[in-house]
């Protein structure tokens, strides 16, 4: 018990990733404690999504180490990787709902296909989750294309939490939503993560999202974590990057590269 409370849930050190000449991650160090919610902030195109995809093994890092529960995961074999994925849930930036499947089949997908639950039981859990994210149960039998963007995000959220994963990733959960819907999604994330007792890792550039979701904040810039700390230290971090970002100023150490 004592050792497990010390071992971080996720630990990245010196993670590098480049696409050709585009060096996206230049040595990312990040520690996410168990049961806490970490939020990564940073401008768009700074490698936030790439960071998540490296942890999930959707992209393989060029260098560095990534540990989940103390276990190195950068060199897993395919079936070990499938096994590890059972710990994760993810809400994708664009929702990534399966458009050939009904809403409830989307939500139940990990339960039925990934974990071998029977369809009837899985449907019940799915409908529960659909209601938990504030959608009417009739939505269960629609297809993703029949829903608005905000509803799709909710379904994505329901799918991410349906199997009660230990670790949940949220990639820009509120981007593209109106402020009220964004706040609803933020509240749902907090609610669901607390209910499951999961460790959360979110990405956003929406400051109100940060303040609602985060226990800890990490700021990424040019492929490195330039500041990390608890949420209540965010406003007086003494870090120029953070200050510029949270106040949304055009001038400061972060220069927009025109490209």
């Amino acid at each position: 018990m004592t050792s497990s409370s010390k071992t971080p849930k996720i630990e990245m050190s010196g993670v590098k990733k480049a696409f050709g000449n585009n060096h996206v991650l230049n040595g990312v160090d990040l520690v996410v404690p168990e049961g806490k919610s970490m939020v990564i902030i940073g401008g768009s195109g700074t490698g936030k999504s790439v960071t998540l995809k490296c942890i999930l093994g959707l992209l393989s890092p060029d260098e560095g180490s990534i540990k989940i529960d103390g276990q190195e995961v950068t060199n897993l074999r395919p079936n070990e990787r499938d096994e590890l994925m059972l710990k994760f849930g993810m809400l994708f930036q664009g929702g990534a709902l399966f458009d050939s499947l009904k809403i409830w089949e989307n939500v139940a997908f990990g339960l039925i296909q990934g974990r071998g639950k029977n369809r009837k039981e899985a449907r019940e859990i799915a409908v529960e989750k659909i209601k938990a994210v504030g959608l009417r149960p009739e939505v269960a039998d629609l297809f993703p294309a029949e829903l608005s963007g905000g509803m799709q995000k909710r379904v994505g959220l329901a799918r991410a939490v349906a199997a009660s994963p230990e670790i949940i990733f949220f990639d820009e959960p509120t981007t593209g939503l109106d402020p009220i819907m964004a706040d609803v999604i933020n509240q749902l994330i907090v609610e669901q993560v607390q209910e499951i007792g999961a460790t959360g890792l979110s990405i956003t550039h929406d400051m109100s999202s940060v303040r609602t979701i985060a226990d800890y904040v990490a700021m990424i810039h040019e492929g490195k974590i330039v500041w990390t700390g608890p949420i209540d230290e965010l406003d007086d971090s003494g870090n120029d990057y953070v200050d510029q970002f949270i106040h949304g100023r055009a001038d400061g150490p972060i220069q927009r590269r025109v490209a």
Partner: protein
Amino acid sequence: MDSTQNQINPVFAPFQAVGQILLSFFQKTGQLSSFIGKSLYHSIVPPFFPAQLWRQLVDIGYYSLPVVGMTALFTGMVLALQSYTGFTRFNAESAIAGVVVLSITRELAPVLAGLMVAGRVGAAIAAEIGTMRVTEQIDALTTLSVNPFKYLIAPRLIAATLTLPILVLIGDIIGVYGGYVVSIYNLGFSPGGYLSQTWDVVENMDVISGLIKAAAFGFIVAMMGCYHGFNSGRGAQGVGAATTNAVVSSSILILIFNYILTQVFFS
């Protein structure tokens, strides 16, 4: 931006260009081989997704029947007509039945069905999987503990490899029937004579070689569709390019492998 390229002496520039082309060629072949290896591995190692396989059998097999049937019918008809106009010059009309059945079973049914299916199915596979790649649905599969090779690729590969021979067998029959119809009702042959000439000429190997070709072409079409879709570039443009590449590469590979297989079977 790219400092290494500026330092290279212009004299070596051509070598560098050739080197890059060779490197990218080897890299692509390596990538394709490893993709094929992975696809085969996941096609035979459980868990399987029978519902997906069934859907693909219907999509690839059943719904390709009209297009393959029409192709075979008109090909058989035109073969009979063309051979007649040619063969009457040598008083060799009795060879028409044989020409029709051999051309259809050995070459035309498998190759034309393969090409039609490349257009219909190869494009659809590349577009569907490419769209799933671009919209992160493939990544979503992985995070839900479902291997995309098992869920998306294996069913398409198996379905195409199994159904194309069946389609071609049906195409053989329809094609011969097309030739028969034209010969009897248009060219005035006797029905019994035409059929017995057909049976006299055709041998098991003619049909079987065509079916083996069909299986190979089905595999090629599904493999190219999956490969290009899976490695689709980003955005709508990426999916468009993947679709084009899938159709073009599978059509060319079908023609190449048709030659190779013919060489293997009949020489």
